[in-house]
C-alpha cells in the first residue's frame, strides 16, 4: 500500500505539470534498443514517457511537433563515475560533498544524500547531451583516516528538479595502488582486509540481534558500514572496483568469484591484457578510453585501444567523461574510442544503454523504447564528434534550456565585443 502510494507520488512528480505529448519527427532515430535505427523516424513522448518510436508512427493530435529532419536522434547520454550533484568548486570544501572525512563512515557513505540539482555543473554536462549520471563517491584521506570503501553511488537525473533516481546502485572501492595504500601499504593487506570484512558482514547479517545486544566480538567496521555492505555480500549491489594493473584485475575477479560478489570494474587500464578473463566472468568495465599514459606503475600498459579490445573480447563497456566539471567531453571520449577501433554503435552504446544496464537502470533509461522515460537528444550531426553540438535535449519528456552559466557569461560579453572589435564579425 505504502509502496504503491510512493510509486504513484514518484510518477506524479516525474510527469510534466500538464499532460503533454512531444513528437520528434523526421530525424535519423538511433534507438539503442531492439528496434535499431529508423532513417526517418518519429519518437512520441507523453507525460514524460516514451510511448512510441518507429518509421510509421503518426504523431497524436495536439502533440508538440519537433522537427528533427536532417538530424540525429539518440537516447539521452548516461554518464558514469561522475561528481554531478556533489561538487561545485573542488577547492571550496563547503561545496564538495564527494567524500567524507568522518571516521566510521565508509561503506555507509551515501551519495544519494545532499545531492544538489542546482549545481552549475549540471547544465554544462547536459549541454553535452548527458541526461542521467551516476553520482559516485570519492575518497577523502586525511588525518590518518584511511577507510577501504568510498561509499555508495546513486543514479541521478539532470533536469534541475530533485535529482535522485535510485540510491545504492553500486559500492565504490579502490584496489590497486590506492587501495593498497589505504590498507596499510600493500596489495596483500587490502585483499586480506576485504576478505575479513566480507566474512564479518555475513556474520553480522546472521547475528544482527546478538550484535545489538553486545554479544558478538568487535567487528572491523561500524554497524552502519556493515549494514551498507549486506547487499554487496548478497550479490544485489555491485561492487564498483577501480583497478588498473592486469594482475590486480585478476585479483578483483578472484575475490568476486570467491565471495559471490557482483563486480563492475572501473578504469581497468590494462583490462585489454586480461580481456578474455573479464569477459568470461561476465564483468562489465567502465573506462576512459583516452587515458593512455603510463601515469603510474599500475597503468604501464594503458592504450587508446583498450575500449575496442575489451569490446572485441565480449566485455560490456561504458565510457566515462573526464570527471568533475568535464563530463561533457564523454561523447568525444567515445568518438576517440571509435577512432581507435571501436565500432560507432558500440561507442554510442557505451554512453547510453550499457551504463544503464551496468547499474540496473535499463528498464527506465538508456534507449528510446516505449515505456522508458523520455530522455532524448537531437544532434546537429554525429554526436560523437567535436564538430557537432546538440540541437535539443529532452529529459523526462521536458525540453531543457540550451544554456548554462557559461553561455550566460558568453552572452554578456560577446555582443559588446562584436560591436567594437576589429576582428571578423558574424
Amino acid at each position, binding site marked *: 500500500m505504502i509502496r504503491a502510494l510512493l510509486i504513484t507520488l514518484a510518477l506524479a512528480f516525474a510527469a510534466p505539470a500538464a499532460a503533454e505529448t512531444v513528437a520528434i519527427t523526421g530525424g535519423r532515430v538511433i534507438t539503442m534498443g531492439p528496434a535499431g535505427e529508423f532513417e526517418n523516424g518519429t519518437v512520441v513522448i507523453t507525460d514524460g514517457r516514451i510511448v512510441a518510436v518507429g518509421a510509421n508512427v503518426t504523431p497524436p493530435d495536439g502533440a508538440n511537433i519537433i522537427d528533427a529532419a536532417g538530424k540525429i536522434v539518440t537516447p539521452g547520454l548516461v554518464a558514469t563515475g561522475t561528481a554531478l550533484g556533489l561538487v*561545485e*568548486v*573542488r*577547492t*571550496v570544501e563547503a561545496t564538495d560533498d564527494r567524500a567524507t572525512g568522518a571516521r566510521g563512515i565508509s561503506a555507509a557513505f551515501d551519495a544519494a544524500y545532499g545531492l544538489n540539482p542546482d549545481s*552549475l*555543473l549540471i547544465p*554544462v554536462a547536459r549541454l553535452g547531451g548527458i541526461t542521467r549520471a551516476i553520482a559516485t563517491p570519492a575518497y577523502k584521506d586525511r588525518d590518518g583516516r584511511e577507510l577501504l570503501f568510498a561509499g555508495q553511488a546513486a543514479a541521478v537525473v539532470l533536469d534541475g528538479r530533485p535529482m535522485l533516481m535510485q540510491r545504492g546502485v553500486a559500492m565504490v572501492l579502490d584496489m590497486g595502488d590506492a587501495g593498497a595504500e589505504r590498507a596499510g601499504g600493500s596489495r596483500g593487506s587490502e585483499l586480506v582486509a576485504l576478505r575479513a570484512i566480507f566474512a564479518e558482514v555475513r556474520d553480522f547479517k546472521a547475528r544482527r540481534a546478538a550484535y545489538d545486544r553486545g554479544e558478538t566480538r568487535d567487528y572491523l567496521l561500524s554497524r552502519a558500514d556493515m549494514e551498507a555492505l549486506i547487499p554487496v555480500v548478497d550479490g544485489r549491489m555491485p561492487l564498483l572496483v577501480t583497478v588498473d594493473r*592486469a594482475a590486480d584485475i585478476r585479483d578483483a575477479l578472484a575475490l568476486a568469484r570467491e565471495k559471490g560478489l557482483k563486480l563492475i570494474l572501473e578504469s581497468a587500464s*590494462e583490462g*585489454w*591484457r586480461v580481456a578474455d578473463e573479464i569477459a568470461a566472468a561476465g564483468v562489465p568495465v567502465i573506462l576512459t578510453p*583516452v*587515458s*593512455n*599514459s*603510463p*601515469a*603510474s*606503475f599500475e*597503468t*604501464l*600498459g*594503458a*592504450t*587508446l*585501444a583498450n575500449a575496442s579490445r575489451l569490446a572485441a573480447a565480449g566485455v560490456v563497456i561504458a565510457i566515462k567523461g*573526464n570527471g*568533475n*566539471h*568535464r563530463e*561533457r*567531453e564523454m561523447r*568525444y571520449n567515445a*568518438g*576517440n574510442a*571509435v*577512432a581507435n577501433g571501436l565500432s560507432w554503435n558500440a561507442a554510442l552504446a557505451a554512453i547510453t544503454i550499457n551504463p544503464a544496464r551496468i547499474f540496473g537502470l535499463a528498464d527506465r533509461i538508456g534507449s528510446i523504447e516505449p515505456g522508458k522515460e523520455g530522455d532524448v537528444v537531437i544532434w546537429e550531426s554525429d554526436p*560523437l*564528434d*567535436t*564538430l*557537432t*553540438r546538440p540541437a535539443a535535449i529532452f529529459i523526462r519528456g521536458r525540453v531543457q534550456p540550451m544554456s548554462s552559466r*557559461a*553561455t550566460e*557569461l*558568453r552572452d554578456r*560579453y*560577446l555582443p559588446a*565585443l*562584436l560591436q*567594437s*572589435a*576589429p*576582428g*571578423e*564579425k*558574424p
Partner: protein
Amino acid sequence: MTSTVKQLSGICAALIWVATGGAALAAHGVPDDPFPSSYRPAPAAPFAIVGATVLTGTGAEIAGATVLVADGKVEAVGRALAVPQAYRQIDGRGKWVTPGIIDAHSHLGVYPSPATPSHEDGNEATSPNTAEVWAEHSVWPQDPKFRLARASGVTSLMVLPGSANLFGGRSVTLKNVPSVTTQGMKFPGAPYGLKVACGENPKRVYGSKGRSPATRMGNVAGYRRAWIDAADYVRRWDRWVAGGKAGDPPKRDLQLETLAGVLRGEILVQNHCYRADEMAVMLDVAREFGFKIRAFHHANEAFKIAPLLAKAGVCVATWASSWGAKMESLDGIEENAPIVAAAGGCAIIHSDDGLLIQRLNQEAGIAMAAANHAGLKVSRGEAIKWITANPAKAMGIADQVGTLEPGKMADLILWSADPFSVYALAERVWVDGVIQWDRTDSRYQAPSDFLLGQPGQEFAR
C-alpha cells in the same frame, strides 16, 4: 667562498664557450647559451604530399594542394605545383595536412609518467621567487608522454615550471624528437620564457607555510619587489659595460639574470593568470617596470577583456573545456579563445596536460564549433592557428615554425581526416622534414627507454 666558486664557474663556462667557438658573451657579461641545443635534424630526401587539403597556418585552406619539402624546409604549397623528379610522392588525396602542432604550455618531462616523487621536478616550491631555476634541468627525456604527443602531431612544445611560485623559473622550448639528452631536443635558438604565476597557487603554497605571499596583494608586492631588484641589477651591469668594463664585473646572480633578461626583452614572460582583473593588474606591473608580457596562460576570463589584451599585444593560451576546479577558473567558457581572436588578439589552445596534449586539434575543434554556434564565423584556416602559428608567436619561434610558408622548418602532419574531428588520426608526422611518427610503421614508433621490457608494450599506444 661560495661567491668565489660561483664567479669562477661563471668564468669557466664563458671560457669553454669561447674555446668551442659557439659562444659569445653578451654585452652584459652573461654567456648566451650555457646549455646549447645539440639537436641536428638528420638529412632527409625531398618529398611531395600531393592532393591533400592543406591548412597552411596563415589562414588559408587549400583543397587538392601539393606540399613540397626539401632540405628539411617547406619549399612550396599550392595547387598544381610541379613535383620534381627526385621528390618522393606521397598520396594525400582524402587527407589533410597542417603544420605540426605546437603546445605553448606543457609539463612533459618535468612531471613525467609514471608520476613518482623521484621525477616530480616541475615546482621548486621552496621560495616564491625561483627565477634562477631552468625547466630544462628537470626534463626527463624518457617521459613516455613525449612519444604520445608525437603520435598526435605535436612537433614543438614549451615546457614550463609549475605555478607554485610567483616566479617559477625559465621555460624551455623543445622539438618533439626522441633524444637521450634534453639538449638533443632543444629548439635551436628559441628564446627562453619566464614562468610567472598569478592568483591562488602561489598564495596557497606560501600562505600555508606562514610566509608571504598569503594573499593576492602579497603576490603583487612580491612581483614588484623582484622587478625593483632586477632593474637595479640591470643598472649595475649597464654601468660596468658603459665604463668600458673596467674593473671587476658585478657578481652574477642567476635569479636576477633571468629577470634582467626579461627587462632587456630577451626572455619572454609566460604568465599563468586566470582572472580578468588579475591580468589587468599584471599589465600594469609590466608597464611600471617596462617589460612585455608575452602570453597569459589558462586565462579563463580573457574573453572579458579581449580588446584590452589584443591592444596590449599579449597572447592568450587557454582551453575550451577546462573550468571550475578553482574559484579563479569558475568563469571558463568554450568560446574563450575564439573571442580573443575575434577581438583581434593572438589566441592559443594549450594543454597543460599529458592527455590533452594528444588532442589539441580536437580541443581547437570544440572551441571552433562553439564559436560558430555562438555566431562567430571561425574558419578551419583560422582555428588551426590556435595550435600552430599563434603558439609559435608566443614562444618567439614564429619565424621558423607554425605555418607552411616557404623556408619554414618542415614540421607537418598528414591527417587521416579533418584535423578538428574526433576521428582524425595523425598518420605521419615530420620534424624538419624527417619522419618522426608513422602510424603504420613501427620503425617510427619506438617507445622511450623506460618502456622497454615493461608490460603491455606489444602494441603502439
